[in-house]
C-alpha cells in the first residue's frame, strides 16, 4: 500500500522540519514547501492527500493559498497559525479548511488530527456510514441508532447507554442548543431537578471519548450559561 502523502507548508524551516520528522515517524510521506507559491508548484506535479498550511507566510499567505487550492482540489487542509482567537478559527474554517491548529501545538494532537482527517478523506468517503436512515453523520462522527454504535473517524468508541442517548439526541439535532433540563428529560425520562452537574459530567466524559483535544472540542460544545450542542459539521 502506498503511504499517504502530506504537504507541509511553513515559512519557518525548523517547524516544517519538525512536522516532517514527526509525520515520517508515523509512517507518512512528506513534502515540504516554504511559502504559498511553492506549495502550489508542488501540487501541480505531485499527488497529495493532505495539506498542513501555515497562515502567516511571505509571498502568498495561507488563506489565499487555500482558496487557490480549493478551486481545483478537495483534499483535507489543516490550518496552522499563531492566531488563537475564535474569530480567526471561524474565518479559516469557513474559507474551506477542515481543521485549525494553533501554535504552539502539541505534536501528538497534530498527529491525531492528521490521522483523523486522512481517515475521513480516504475511507469514509466511499464506504460505511452512508445512505442509511438509522445512521447519523457529523464530521468524523458516525452514529448508528439501530446497532447503538458510534465510530469516530472509523474507529468504534465505547459509550455507556446514557452517554449514547445524549449523543444521539444531540447529533439528531446537530446545531441546536439544549439545556441540561431538556437533555435530562429526554434521556432519563424523568422530571429534571437540579441536574446541571449530572449532565455536565456526562458531557465531559463523552468529550473525552470523542474529541482529540477535550479542552478544545470540535464536536460537542458547551454553550456557557445556556446549554450544550453538537457542532453542525459536514
Amino acid at each position: 500500500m502506498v503511504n499517504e502523502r502530506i504537504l507541509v507548508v511553513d515559512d519557518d524551516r525548523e517547524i516544517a522540519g519538525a512536522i516532517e520528522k514527526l509525520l515520517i515517524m508515523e509512517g507518512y510521506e512528506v513534502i515540504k514547501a516554504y511559502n504559498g507559491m511553492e506549495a502550489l508548484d508542488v501540487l501541480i506535479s505531485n499527488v497529495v492527500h493532505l495539506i498542513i498550511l501555515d497562515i502567516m507566510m511571505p509571498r502568498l499567505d495561507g488563506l489565499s493559498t487555500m482558496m487557490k487550492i480549493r478551486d481545483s482540489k478537495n483534499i483535507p487542509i489543516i490550518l496552522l497559525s499563531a492566531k488563537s482567537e475564535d474569530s480567526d478559527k471561524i474565518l479559516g474554517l469557513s474559507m474551506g479548511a477542515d481543521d485549525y491548529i494553533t501554535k504552539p501545538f502539541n505534536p501528538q494532537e497534530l498527529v491525531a488530527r492528521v490521522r483523523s482527517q486522512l481517515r475521513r478523506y480516504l475511507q469514509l468517503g466511499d464506504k460505511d456510514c452512508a445512505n442509511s436512515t438509522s445512521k447519523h453523520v457529523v464530521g468524523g462522527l458516525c452514529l448508528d441508532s439501530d446497532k447503538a454504535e458510534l465510530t469516530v473517524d472509523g474507529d468504534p468508541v465505547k459509550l455507556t447507554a446514557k452517554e449514547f442517548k445524549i449523543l444521539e439526541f444531540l447529533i439528531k439535532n446537530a446545531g441546536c442548543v439544549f439545556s441540561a433540563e431538556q437533555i435530562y428529560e429526554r434521556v432519563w425520562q424523568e422530571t429534571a431537578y437540579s441536574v446541571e452537574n449530572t449532565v455536565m459530567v456526562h458531557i465531559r466524559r463523552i468529550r473525552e471519548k470523542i474529541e482529540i483535544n477535550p479542552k478544545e472540542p470540535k464536536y460537542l460544545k458547551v454553550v456557557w450559561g445556556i446549554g450544550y450542542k453538537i457542532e453542525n459539521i459536514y
Partner: protein
Amino acid sequence: MATKLRTFTRNKILKILSFSLVVILITASSLQWFYLHNRNINPEVLFVQDYDQSETYHRKVSQGIRDTINQIVYDIEKILPEPEYLYYVSDGEKAYYNASLSHILDHEKYLYKYVDQSWEYGEHTYNNIQYYFDENLSLYLTFTEEYMEQKQQEWEDEKTQLLPIVISIFTSITVAILLIIYLILVTGRKPEDDEVHLTPYMDMMYSDIQLGIMIFPLMISYSEYNMVRNYGNSHSSNVLGMDQILVIILSAFTTIISTIILGVILLSLVRKIKAKRLIKHSLVYAIFSGISKFIRSFFDDSRFEHFPLTKSLDRRQLIFTSASGVMVFTSFIFLLSTRSLFIGMIPVFIEAIIIYWYFNENRKTFKEINQGFQASLQEQMKSERMKVDLITNVSHDLKTPLTSIISYVDLLSKEDLPESAKDYVNILADKSGRLKNIVSDLFDLAKSTSGSLPLDMKHLDLKKLIQQTLGDMEDEIEKSGISIKESLSATPVYIYSDGKKLYRVFQNIIGNALKYSMQGTRIFIDMKIDNNIVEVTIKNTASYPMDFTAEEILQRFTRGDEARTSEGSGLGLSIAESFTWASGGRFQVEIDGDQFKVILKFPVNGVELVSGPE
C-alpha cells in the same frame, strides 16, 4: 518676674474668676439701683444738706401755689390730695383757705405772700417764684415749723440710708470696669506665648451676627429698667411688697444672663480685633467677598492656561459681552440727550461691527479646534491600532520559536537516549509546556487589558454557568480533596455577558481556590441578588499566611505562595479580573485573616428581555 506675672495674669482660672466677679458686681449694683427705685428714695438727699433748700421742697411749693391759684380761678371746691401746707387765697370777692389768715401769719418763717403783684418771702423760703397773677389776687401760703422739722428729720434719715448703697454701687461699678479692662487686655492670650488664640465655637460666629445678638440683652435690660422704674413710682412705702420682690428677683436673673451674653460676645469681639479678623470674619464681608470672587471668576482665564484656542474664545466672549453692554448703554444715553435718531444709531453701527468681528473670529477658532480634535482622534486611533498590531506581532514572534522548541523536544524524547538525557528532555518538555501556558495567558491578558478582546455577548444564566463550570472541573475538585459548598439562587439568574470568558473567570478563581486552600476546609460559592445586581462570592481558607494585600495579589505574576514552583502562569487572577471587567462585571478581592474572598458583580437581565436557548 515678668514671665511670672504674665503666667499669672493670663491664667485661665483667674480670667474665669474675674468674669464671674464682673457678672456678680454688675448684677449687684443693678439690684441695688432697682431697690432704690422701689423704695422711692430721693437721690437729692446726697447733695442738699437741708430739706428747705431742696429742689423737692421747691417743687412742692410751686405745686401748692399752682393748686391754690387754680382753686380760686376755677372755683374748685377742694384741693386733692389734702394739702400739707396752710393757705389763704382771695380774688377780692371770695376767698378759699384751710387756715385763718392770722394763723398763717403766725408761721411767717416759711411764708410765701403775694399781694399787689409782688412776692414777699419768709426768712427760710426759696426766694425765686416766677408766677405772676391778677392785681386783686392775693395769696398766703406757709408750712408749720413742726411739719418742716419732721421733714428735715426724714431727709437726714434717708441720707444715712442712701449713702452706703450709693457708695457700694459706685465701687461695684468701678471694680467691674477695671476687671473688664483687665479681661479685654488678657483675653485671647495664653501663658505659653504671645499669640492671639481664638476660642473655638464662640469666635467662629460672624462678627455682625454677634453684634446683632448683643441687641437682645440690651433691649431686655432697657425694658427691665423701665418696668422697675414704673413699679418704683407707683409705690412709696418703706417696705417692699411681695410683687416688687418678685420683679427684683426676675430682673436679677435677666441681668445675670444679659451680662454673661454681653460679656462673652464683647470678649470675642475683642479677641477678633486683636487677631485683626473682626471685619474679615463677618457675614457682610463673607457675602461681599463671595460676590467679588464670583465676578472675578468671569475675568479669570487661568483655567484655560494650556488651551490657547479656548482661552482666545473666552476672552473674545468677554470683550463681546462687555462691549455690547457699553454700546446699549451709550445708545440709550445718546438717544436721551440728543433726541436725534442719527446720532443714536452710531452705537448700533459699532455694535454691528463688533458682532461681525465676534462671529468671524470665533468661526476661525472653531475651525482650528476641530482640526486639532480631528488630528488627536486620528493619532489616538493610530496608536490604538499599533497597540493591537504590536500584541499580535509579539505574540507571533514568541509562539513561532516556542513551536519549534516543543516539537523538537517531542522528537528528542522519542530518540534512544541515555537515562540522564531522558530526564533532561522530560524537564525540557515540562518547562516548555509551562512556557506555552504563560505565553498564551499573557496574550489573553494583554488583549483584554488593551481593550482588543473580541466579545461574544449573550443573555445567559449565571447560575447555570457556575454549575457547568463545577461539573467541568469535577475531576480536579475530587483530586484536590477539598469540597465545594455552593448556595446559588433557586431560579435562573440571567445576565448579559460572554459565556466563554466567564467560564475562564470561574475556572481560574475556583482553580486558584483549590490550589491554595488548606486541606479539610471548604470552598464557599454564594450568590445573592440585591437591587438588580447579582453578587457571587467565592470564599476559601488559605493554606499559607497571606501577607499581601488585595491589590498586590491582582498584580501581574503575583502568586499566593512566594516560591514559584507549582504549575500555572501566575496570571490566573489577573485574567479573571480583566475578563470580568471586559464582559461587563465588577471584580473585587478581599482578604480577611486566612479568608480569601473574590466578589463578582453583574447587572441582572442585561439590557434586553431574556430570550430562551437559541
